């Protein structure tokens, strides 16, 4: 693959970085990343990945746009209320950068379809808003050996971690099981300040770009916690747990499990 003149202009600020160059840009253009969720986090992650020239971006989401999403879901707009989020995100990202092929997947992920969705991609990004999905995505990535950049937001706090199966920790190394239903407030109950997903999604996008380029240190065995009110970042160590039920030495979880039924449908 050779960069054409338009691409040389578009990506010039990447090309002049020693860590990227023309070679790195070609890696970005041939990379395939799949986003779980086209909401608060999926919007900024996809937006930045598209701008950076990540060649193929899959997005899974079954929801349509509501007016109450627009306070933070920046790939959508007022005219598109009622449209599928994945279609809206595809329009926005491809308008920003025609080099990018966005694959809109209007489905709800389940234990039966997730492995199929992620198998053709290099990296998975979780921007889902609920624990059942987060655990399902974690398990699917560990079982299929896919790098996962996971993000979560609530109120004024956000978290990011990068899961590299076999090399580092996974979500269950930290919390073996999802918290019991009813104990956790959803974003719908608790709210979220509009720019928070921008901060966390921006960090996730950066982790993805670093993984593609093979540069820097990923958030492996670390959880980064952002407190917006205090404007503080904290990095917490999460060692790989040898007794982890999915990535440990004697795993008890060897196939996927849906927690969805135990939870009410909290959608953001």
């Amino acid at each position: 693959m050779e960069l054409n003149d338009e691409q040389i202009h578009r990506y010039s600020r990447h090309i002049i970085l020693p860590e990227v160059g023309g070679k790195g840009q070609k890696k970005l253009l041939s990379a395939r990343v799949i986003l779980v969720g086209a909401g608060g986090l999926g919007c900024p992650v996809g937006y930045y990945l598209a701008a950076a020239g990540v060649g193929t971006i899959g997005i899974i989401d079954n929801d349509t746009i509501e007016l109450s999403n627009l306070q933070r879901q920046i790939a959508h707009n007022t005219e598109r209320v009622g449209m599928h989020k994945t279609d809206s995100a595809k329009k926005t990202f491809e308008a920003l950068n025609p080099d990018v092929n966005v694959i809109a997947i209007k489905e709800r992920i389940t234990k039966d379809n997730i492995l199929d969705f992620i198998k053709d991609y290099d990296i998975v990004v979780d921007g889902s808003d609920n624990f059942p999905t987060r655990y399902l995505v974690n398990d699917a990535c560990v079982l299929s050996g896919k790098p996962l950049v996971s993000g979560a937001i609530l109120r004024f706090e956000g978290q990011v971690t990068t899961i590299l199966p076999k090399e580092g920790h996974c979500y269950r190394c930290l919390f073996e099981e999802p918290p019991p239903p009813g104990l956790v407030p959803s974003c719908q109950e608790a709210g979220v300040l509009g720019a928070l997903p921008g901060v966390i999604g921006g960090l996730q996008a950066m982790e993805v770009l670093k993984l593609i380029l093979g540069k820097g240190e990923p958030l492996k065995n670390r959880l980064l916690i952002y407190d917006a009110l205090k404007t503080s970042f904290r990095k917490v160590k999460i060692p790989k747990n040898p007794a982890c039920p999915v990535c440990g030495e004697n795993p008890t979880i060897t196939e996927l499990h849906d927690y969805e039924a135990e939870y009410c449908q909290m959608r953001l």
Partner: protein
Amino acid sequence: MEEIKPDKTINIKGLVCPYTFVKSKLAIEDMEVGEVLEIILDYPEASRSIPKSMEDHGHKVLKVEKINDTDWVIVIRKERE
């Protein structure tokens, strides 16, 4: 001084920064370590910035010379991938 024979020559006259460096960098990326790139340009600022940027990237600047009223020639040896 002995004349160095370039392995590749690019003419980037008419280009301004940062494209002068972008084109030079893309050219050197495609070369082997030890090979020599000759760049012909007419953007004055780039006659200073390209040698500096190339050194920052770890390459060796062999020559920077104004060859007529408008043009410079810069010769760089690729020192690392």
